[in-house]
C-alpha cells in the first residue's frame, strides 16, 4: 500500500466506516425499541435536523450559543495566558496560583454551574462556567509549554543579541503554540459542551441548551437527538477549524 492510499484510508475511509457503524447500531436499537418517543431512527432525526435548519429560532439559538462559546473560550485563553506568563516570570505567583488551579480543577462542573446560576443569571452563568472550567486546562498547557521553552535556543538568541520582540514573536510564541494547539482545539470543543450543559440547567432562552431543555420537557425525542447531533458536529467542526488554522498560524508566526 503506498503512502497516498494509506493517508486516504486513515483520513477518509476509516472515519466514514466508524460513522456508518454508529448509524447501523443506532438503527438497530431504534428498530428494537420501535418507539419514536424512546429512540427515533437516524432518518427521523435527520428529518428533524432539516426542520431545525429551516427555522429562524434555531439559527438564533445556534448563533447565540456559538458566540457565547467563542467569548468564553477567548476569555479563558487570555486569562490563562496572562496567568501562565505571570507564574512563569514570578515563582511566588506560581505558588499562589497552584492551589486555586487545583481547586477549580477538582470542583465538580455541575456544582460550578449551579452556583453561577444562583449567583448570576441564565445568560451570563454559562459563559462564566465555560470560562472557569476550561481555565485550568489552558493555564496548565501554556505554563508547561513556557517552562519547556528551548533553553538552548534562548541562549543562542542572547548571544546574538536578537531583539526581545523577535524572541517573543519568532521563538517563544511559535513554540508555545506548537505545544498547546492540541489542548486549544480540544478545549474549544469542551467549552461548547459545557456551554450547552450550563444552558440546559440554566434554561437559557434562545440557546441550543434552551432548545434541548424545551425538547426534553415536551418529550420531543427526535428534536433532542437532532440538537445533540448538531452540537456534536459543531464541536467537531470547532476542533477541526483550530487544527486547520494550525499550519497557517505556524507559518505566520
Amino acid at each position: 500500500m503506498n503512502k497516498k492510499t494509506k493517508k486516504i484510508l486513515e483520513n477518509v475511509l476509516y472515519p466514514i466506516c466508524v460513522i456508518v457503524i454508529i448509524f447501523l447500531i443506532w438503527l438497530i436499537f431504534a428498530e428494537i425499541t420501535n418507539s419514536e418517543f424512546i429512540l427515533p431512527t437516524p432518518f427521523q432525526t435527520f428529518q428533524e435536523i432539516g426542520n431545525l435548519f429551516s427555522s429562524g429560532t434555531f439559527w438564533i439559538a445556534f448563533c447565540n450559543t456559538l458566540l457565547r462559546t467563542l467569548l468564553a473560550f477567548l476569555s479563558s485563553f487570555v486569562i490563562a495566558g496572562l496567568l501562565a506568563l505571570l507564574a512563569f516570570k514570578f515563582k511566588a505567583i506560581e505558588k499562589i496560583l497552584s492551589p486555586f488551579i487545583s481547586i477549580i480543577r477538582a470542583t465538580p462542573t455541575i456544582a460550578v454551574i449551579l452556583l453561577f446560576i444562583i449567583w448570576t443569571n441564565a445568560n451570563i452563568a454559562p459563559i462564566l462556567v465555560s470560562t472557569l472550567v476550561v481555565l485550568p486546562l489552558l493555564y496548565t498547557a501554556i505554563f508547561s509549554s513556557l517552562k519547556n521553552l528551548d533553553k538552548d535556543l534562548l541562549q543562542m538568541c542572547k548571544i546574538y543579541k536578537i531583539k526581545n520582540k523577535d524572541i517573543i514573536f519568532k521563538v517563544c510564541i511559535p513554540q508555545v503554540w506548537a505545544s498547546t494547539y492540541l489542548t486549544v482545539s480540544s478545549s474549544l470543543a469542551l467549552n461548547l459542551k459545557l456551554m450547552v450543559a450550563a444552558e440546559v440547567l440554566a434554561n437559557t432562552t434562545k440557546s441550543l441548551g434552551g432548545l434541548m431543555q424545551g425538547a426534553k420537557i415536551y418529550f420531543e425525542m427526535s428534536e433532542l437527538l437532532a440538537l445533540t447531533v448538531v452540537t456534536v458536529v459543531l464541536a467537531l467542526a470547532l476542533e477541526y477549524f483550530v487544527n486547520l488554522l494550525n499550519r497557517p498560524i505556524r507559518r505566520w508566526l
Partner: protein
Amino acid sequence: MIELKNVKKQYDDNVVFENLNINFENKQITAIMGESGCGKTTLLNILAGLTDFDGTIKKDYDNVSFVFNDNRLIPNLTVEQNLKIVNNNIDLTPFLKFAEIENVRNYYPKQLSSGMAHRVSLLRAFIYPSDLLLMDEPFRNLDVVLKLKLINLFKNLWEKDKKTVIFVSHSIEDVLNIADNVVIIKNKKIALSEKCKQKNIKKLITNCLTKE
C-alpha cells in the same frame, strides 16, 4: 587581544578550573583541548558572557558569534530568516552563494541535511557583526567528507573576515588543520599553550593529553 587573569570557575564546591591565565591574540584562531569535563565549554560560556566567574578578563569586543555543535537554528524560520534575524542590514545572496546554500534559502531547518544546517549555522556566525567567534566542537559527529567541506567553508569565510576565533575540539587533526594556537586545560589549569606552526606540535599535544 583578550586577556584572562586568574580566572576561576566553580560550581558549589566543585572547582572546574583556577588560575587560568591566557592571552588570545586578535585575528588568530585558538583551539582549546582537554578531557571531557575539564571546562572547555565553560570557558567559552565565560567568554560569551553566559556565566559568571572569578578573576578578570580584559577584552576589546562587544559582540560574540557562537557556533554550536547542535546548530540551534530557529525551527519555524527559513534559512534566510534565520540569518536575517542576526543581521538585517546585509545582502545575503553573496554569502548564500559562497556557502553553496542559495537553493535552500527558503527551506526550514527540518528540511535541511545535517551538512546544510551546519553551513547555515557557520554562515550566521560570520554575517553577525562580531569580533570574536566561539565554536563548541563545531565539527563533531560529522562524516569525513562533510567535515572537510565544512572546514573548508570555515577557512574561506575566515579569510574574508578575520575574526578572533576560539574553538573547542577533541581532534588533533582538526586543530592542526585550522588553529594558529593550541591551549590544553588539564587538572584545572593550563597544561599547554603553544603555537601550532612548529615541527613537534603533534607530539607535544599527544604527550600532554595522554600523560598522567
